[in-house]
């Protein structure tokens, strides 16, 4: 079942520059979908359509198979269902303390303060930030800020989490902590949409990949299919995952028998190498 879908969505900026062109994007329930594209391809613009912040110039956005309507009441429900975690946590964390920031969404939903407090504690625990309730955001590290930003969305109990570049600007440990959180959410059945240009991470978590370039989806499918089309990937100013690139070089330059599809993760490459050594 598609929980999030765009049908031929096009969007022009107020000055007339086209930003999105006939975008068809689907996310099925419980899947992790990656939206891969270079800088300025329209990833963030597309995301802002998912919860009705931007309205498509033409086309339709569907959440749980109902087209988005843009009246006040409906839009509140959509924003509760589709939670967006912004790229720069400083844009998102505005409240003077961590707890107050996480409480912001649930309070806006009109929940009872007791329930809000429960949700704040619960979501901070899920991202491993319990004990930081009273800290101001400017005393946190980048990774911690990002986790608080995720907690702020989790506290609204969304059905779909949309994350704009969740690992950009983080150190390796910070990035892997974020991926762990996402992994757990995925196991609990959350639908997750991630935009990124970190191609090495995509095959690790995504079951479906979209490649967007100049406001247009140019390729979609499983990571195997998408990264199998090396030419499209490179034309979109992206690259293969390092592992796949290594395999490509080994095949083309050193005539080793590593055929397409190239392994995309360390695990796959290891299996393939071991198998080759045995032969």
């Amino acid at each position, binding site marked *: 079942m598609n929980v999030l879908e765009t049908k031929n969505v096009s969007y022009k900026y107020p000055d007339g520059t086209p930003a999105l062109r006939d975008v068809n994007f689907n996310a099925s329930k419980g899947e992790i979908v990656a939206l891969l594209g270079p800088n300025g391809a329209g990833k963030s613009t597309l995301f802002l359509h998912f919860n009705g912040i931007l309205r498509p110039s033409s086309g339709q956005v569907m959440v749980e198979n109902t087209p988005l309507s843009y009246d006040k009441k409906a839009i509140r429900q959509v924003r509760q269902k589709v939670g967006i975690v912004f790229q*720069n946590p*400083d844009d998102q964390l505005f409240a*003077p303390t961590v707890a107050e920031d996480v409480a912001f969404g649930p*309070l806006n939903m009109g929940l009872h303060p007791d329930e809000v407090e429960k949700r704040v504690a619960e979501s901070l625990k899920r991202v491993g930030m319990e004990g930081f309730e009273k800290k101001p955001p400017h005393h946190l590290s980048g990774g911690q800020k990002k986790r608080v930003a995720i907690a702020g969305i989790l506290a609204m109990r969304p059905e779909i989490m949309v994350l704009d570049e969740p690992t950009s600007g983080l150190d390796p440990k910070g990035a892997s902590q974020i991926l762990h959180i996402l992994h757990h959410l995925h196991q609990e059945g959350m639908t997750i949409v991630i935009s990124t240009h970190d191609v090495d991470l995509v095959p690790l978590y995504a079951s479906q990949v979209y490649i967007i370039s100049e406001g247009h989806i140019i390729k979609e499918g499983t990571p195997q299919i998408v990264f199998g089309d090396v030419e499209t990937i490179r034309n979109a100013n992206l690259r293969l995952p390092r592992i796949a690139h290594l395999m490509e070089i080994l095949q083309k330059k050193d005539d080793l028998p590593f055929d397409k599809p190239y392994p995309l993760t360390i695990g796959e490459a290891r299996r393939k190498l071991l198998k080759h050594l045995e032969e």
Partner: protein
Amino acid sequence: MFENTLDNYAHSNGLRDMNTFFKVLFAISTMLVSLISTSPVVPLLITFFMSALIIFQAKIPWKFYLKFLAIPFIFGFITFIFMSLFFGIGAHILDLGVFNLAVTEDGFNLGLLLFSRVMGGFTCMAFLALTIPMTELFSELERFRIPQIVTELAMLMYRYIFLFLDEGINMYHAQETRLGYSSYRKSFKSMGMLGSNLFIRTWIKGEQAHLAMESRCYDGSLRTLKAPESIRSIGIGKLALFVSFELILLICVYLTWNLRIV
């Protein structure tokens, strides 16, 4: 960065866990006593007492505290000099011998009173600023029925001051790296560019923050989780101590009503 250390101390000091309302009450009533005193004795007493509290109880490093006090001290001292030279009539107690300038008894007393009130009031303020995190002050403001729009603005400003400073400092370093401040002329030009750029950046950041808030169902009013501590948790003992302290100060004010230093 000065602002940052101030904020750090407010978040971790020896008096951090004391009831916020009590601290606010204490600082403000002491400040009021300092202001109604007509002799410099009580305000000066308050200055020393508050400083002792800040340094020994709240454990703020004295070096930092003195730096913090330096600005109001210089300001108060200059006022004192001007007051004693240009205000008041009556007996001259010191003739400077130039331009007919002289310190009058009246002026000297007035200047000293002003100086002591500045210091007394400011140390009370310092107590507020150094022992209470801004965030907790906001919830106290709500208790005092300050209009919500004011507290909302204060909350947002507090949060974004640090981002603004960061942004400004980063740009400043970037300009310095490319020798933007190597001469007076260049400094003025670079400063101007920094200012206008900061303005634009602030605008963009504000817009982005608004988008993020809208994504979380923002509808124009900031609701906060209100959980101000109950007044009961102050405890009878501390309350009694507080009341008797202020009473003693008031008695001192009464006793020194007509006391003049000169």
